[in-house]
């Protein structure tokens, strides 16, 4: 039964015209994670590789393709956890980082903390040599369209994102 890797691209409303890209994205990411495991990589290596692929895919709400906050900016969160040691690393409200999941792993591996947030996380990223990227590179036209659409006073962003009950 081992090794095994399972990925998700997010629950909620996925418009028909984006469904195919979403399926392709999760299949590609799971192949990448599985290749790591087949090479003898750890489960942590595999999940970070798979999620990094999804962060780099603009079809998903993470990394490039993230939804925008009310100001039209990107703020991202990520977590990793290791089942052997119960070690964990997380970042919250980070900006200008292409792969928050890699920064979360650095928090686990290089600090005695579990979570770093906002400016502190950015300072840590710089100290670890993690390149900052312009926010523009993380924003897609689709994300901007949804942001505009949900600025209206009577908008329902949660319902727009989560869709109806299955």
């Amino acid at each position, binding site marked *: 039964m081992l090794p095994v890797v399972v990925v998700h691209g997010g629950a909620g409303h996925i418009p028909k015209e984006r469904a195919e890209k979403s399926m392709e994205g999760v299949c590609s990411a799971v192949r990448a994670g*599985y290749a790591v495991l087949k090479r003898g990589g750890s489960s942590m290596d595999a999940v970070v590789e798979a999620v990094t692929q999804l962060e780099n895919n603009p079809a998903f709400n993470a990394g490039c393709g993230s939804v925008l906050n009310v100001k039209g900016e990107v703020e991202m969160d990520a977590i990793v956890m290791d089942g052997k040691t119960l070690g964990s690393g997380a970042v919250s409200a980070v900006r200008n980082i292409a792969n928050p999941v890699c920064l979360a792993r650095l928090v686990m591996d290089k600090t005695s903390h579990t979570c770093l947030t906002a400016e502190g996380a950015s300072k840590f990223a710089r100290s670890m040599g993690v390149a900052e990227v312009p926010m523009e590179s993380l924003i897609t036209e689709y994300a901007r369209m949804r942001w505009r659409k949900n600025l209206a006073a009577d908008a329902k962003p949660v319902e727009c994102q989560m869709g109806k009950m299955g």
Partner: protein
Amino acid sequence: TVGAVAVDSEGNVACATSTGGMLNKMEGRVGDTPCIGSGGYADNQMGAVSTTGHGEAIMKVTLARLILFHMEQGHSPEAASDLGLAYMKSRVEALGGVVTVDPQGHWAARFSSKQMSWAAAQKDMLHYGLYGGEHFTQSI
């Protein structure tokens, strides 16, 4: 939100979750993803979970750790995932989805929303789906 769970050949489990958060959220709003036990949890003695959905609701029920509690009681990853999602739906009327794995390599991709894109790789087979009830397979 995107996420992954895995078990390697040594039986170690891990999880990872990453997100841009909720549409038009307030500046500084942080959801479930970076919160241990909510956005994800991993323990070699039970398994690993990565969650997605309405973050404020997932945090109220600490969804990832809740599912692993059900697995500690002997439920399968699929039954435990459904129990956790059903509790979130009944208790705080919210939707979500999870990918779950146990240390033996049994896995589940479950969701209470209409859709969740997911994929799994095991024994050189690729499994994937998007709508409720879908489970396609092909050689990897």
